[in-house]
């Protein structure tokens, strides 16, 4: 028995339980009658003979019989319960009930109830699902439950967590790419590039060059010096700095920053690199929910998004 360290505790718990029930029964049986003194007329006295505060006595009026019956019924119920259900030490009960079994049964029932709906959406194309108001409402609830912790309730992310409402995608914004991201997760890894780029001065120049790619304010001299040093970055980000979805390398020319676009932040990124992980949700959520979520997320930045439906909830 996994619940106990040793067999002893099974007998200990069961013994105490049985002894308590038996004790209650003995108490009930022995206390249902009692001895009274008889008065001078040979009749039983009406009081228990106890006196408090000089003159307060206690009548021994009998209780109704059903009252004691209730106690006997309670004892019977306890015995039947302990036979049917676990409660007597390691005894599992004849019903074979346990919490895990009940949870599994409820889960199976829920699958039975909601399965057809999910299955219908799972069979449809993501673009079609995204245009369905009910699917949108389901997707929104799923998003608020499973995704909003990192990406925010409004799906606009925050530092280190991508904004899902803009047109910029690290690993591709096509419906299937989004579903793959949800199912399998993603790992984005930019190695520390300080050694490859050069001195601190070089890193700063590269940072200015990177800012210039998306037309942000930058020192033209530093941009000119940084451009050749950017050669260390083209393998992933491409010669034009537009990134590579295959590698998860961000587009550096679209004014969208995962960690921030200031010179200092870009320098930090170049020097120390960045590692970022989106966990795989496929095994946890299952394909059907991932499908609905992918449609919802894709819909956030695409025209297919339906008018939001008002959901009456608690």
């Amino acid at each position, binding site marked *: 028995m996994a619940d106990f360290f040793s067999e002893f505790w099974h007998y200990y718990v069961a013994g105490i339980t049985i002894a308590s029930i038996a004790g209650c029964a003995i108490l009930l049986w022995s206390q249902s009658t009692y001895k*009274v003194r008889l008065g001078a007329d040979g009749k039983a006295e009406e009081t228990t003979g106890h006196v408090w505060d000089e003159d307060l006595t206690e009548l021994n009026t*009998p209780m109704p019989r059903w009252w004691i019956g209730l106690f006997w019924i309670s004892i019977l119920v306890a015995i039947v319960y302990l036979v049917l259900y676990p409660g007597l030490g390691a005894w599992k009960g004849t019903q074979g009930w346990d919490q895990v079994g009940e949870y599994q049964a409820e889960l199976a029932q829920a699958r039975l109830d909601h399965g057809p709906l999910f299955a219908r959406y799972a069979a449809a194309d993501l673009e079609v699902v995204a245009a369905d108001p009910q699917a949108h409402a389901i997707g929104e609830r799923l998003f608020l439950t499973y995704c909003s912790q990192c990406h925010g309730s409004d799906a606009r992310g*925050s530092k280190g967590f991508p904004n899902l409402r803009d047109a910029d995608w690290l690993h591709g914004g096509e419906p299937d790419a989004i579903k793959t991201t949800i199912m399998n997760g993603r790992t984005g890894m930019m190695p520390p590039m300080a050694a490859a780029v050069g001195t601190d001065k070089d890193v700063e120049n590269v940072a200015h060059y990177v800012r210039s790619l998306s037309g942000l304010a930058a020192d033209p001299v530093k941009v000119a010096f940084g451009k050749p040093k950017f050669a260390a970055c083209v393998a992933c980000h491409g010669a034009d700095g537009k990134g590579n979805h295959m590698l998860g390398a961000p587009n550096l020319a679209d004014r969208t920053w995962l960690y921030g676009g200031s010179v200092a932040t870009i320098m930090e990124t170049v020097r120390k690199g960045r590692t970022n992980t989106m966990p795989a949700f496929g095994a946890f959520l299952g394909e059907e929910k991932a499908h609905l979520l992918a449609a919802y997320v894709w819909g956030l930045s695409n025209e297919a998004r339906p008018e939001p439906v*008002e959901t009456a909830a608690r």
Partner: protein
Amino acid sequence: MTGPDGVAPRAAVVRMYAAREDIFPREVKGRYNTLRWAAVWLTQLLFYGLPWLNLNGRQAVLFDLAGRKFYLFGVVFWPQDFIYLAALLIVCACGLFLVTAVAGRVWCGFSCPQTVYTGIFLWLERRIEGARSAQLRLARQPWTLEKIGKKTAKHLAWGVVALWTGFTFVGYFAPIRSLGVETAAVALGPWETFWILFYAFATYGNAGWMREQVCKYMCPYARFQSAMFDRDTLIVTYDLERGEPRCGKRKGEARAKAGGAVGASAAGACIDCSMCVQVCPTGIDIRNGLQYECIGCAACVDACNGVMDKLGRPRGLIRYATENGLVQKLGVDQITRRMLRPRVLVYSVVLCILTGAMATSLALRNPLKLDVIRDRGAMGREVDDGQIENVYRLQLMNTSEEPVRLQVGASGIPSARVVETGIIEIDGTTTRAVPVRVRIDPGAGKPGANRIEFTVRSVDDFGLTSTSISTLTVTEGAAFIVPK
């Protein structure tokens, strides 16, 4: 009772539990009985009728547990309004205390559901089994076909009333009209069936079988009512001085004629007809004084007054009086004046304050409710030009039945504003969670948590906030985090 050696034993074994002795109260006519039936009609018309009343296209009184909305005529209560239920219960308790201090157990005797349903069940019983004497005879006679028939008819009649009561009770929690259709089609859900049968069983058991035992052994209120009693509380009393010594009518008249000549005391007014005992629903003899079983129903008062009327003697041998009133021979006006004693005044003042506070709070109740849930995972984020943005989920509850159009604003930090959230429409009695972004200018807030306040205001069809009092406003604080 003697032992084998002819000497009385000094002790005997007594059972602590005994079977209940059946009580067949005699039907009684009189002022208080009429009053009780008035209370029965009033409470039961209300109970059985209320769920059938419709208002605003819905059941006027409906406690929708699954939807967690509680409709009470024009008002919709939500679980957040639970305080009003607590307040109502406290007001009811204070009302009971006040009534008990003034007039003892009148609640028990006249309007407690236990008394009311027992009254209805007794009435049915008498229609089928006959008056008290017939009932007694029936109880003693063996199980003949007639007895079986009468008992079956009685229990069937009780069952019908009980089932109707159970159905009505459930009709307060599930729309009674559709419940009626479901019942007629034998298509009730398992829980509806259970609760109808459960409440029916409780009614049948309590009013048919348990009766006075509920008051004697089960009711907690009966047990602590004595704390509200004092010597100026109205109770059902037997005028000992006037009634004793008891003696039959003729014997009494003879004694009265003889006067003090025989040396015996003058005859008391009580003729020992035992009518007061026969009508008592709890089976006690009120002439033994105030007893814990007495529920103050005054059936004995009615019975005794009837007898006194027939004898041509003044009424009131058994009557409502106070202990002091009886001992000090106070008149009705003196007893009435003693009602204004500190205990009663304190209960009255507490009751008035509570009722007033509850009514005020209800009148000022805001039908719009707001919860602000800050996104926990994401701290503040930097957007265009170094502006700081925080995300919140606003849980907006429209507890009224009218749709509202709302505008959200934020304040607390200079330049704080809500971004891209237009007019939010919420239907009646619904809730919406709306993600809302708040932005501040660079450097406007100090690094770390800043206090801000959301204000949600209802707007008219043109999107303007009017200044009329019909504008609903609700504010709620939240934290705005500026990254360090």
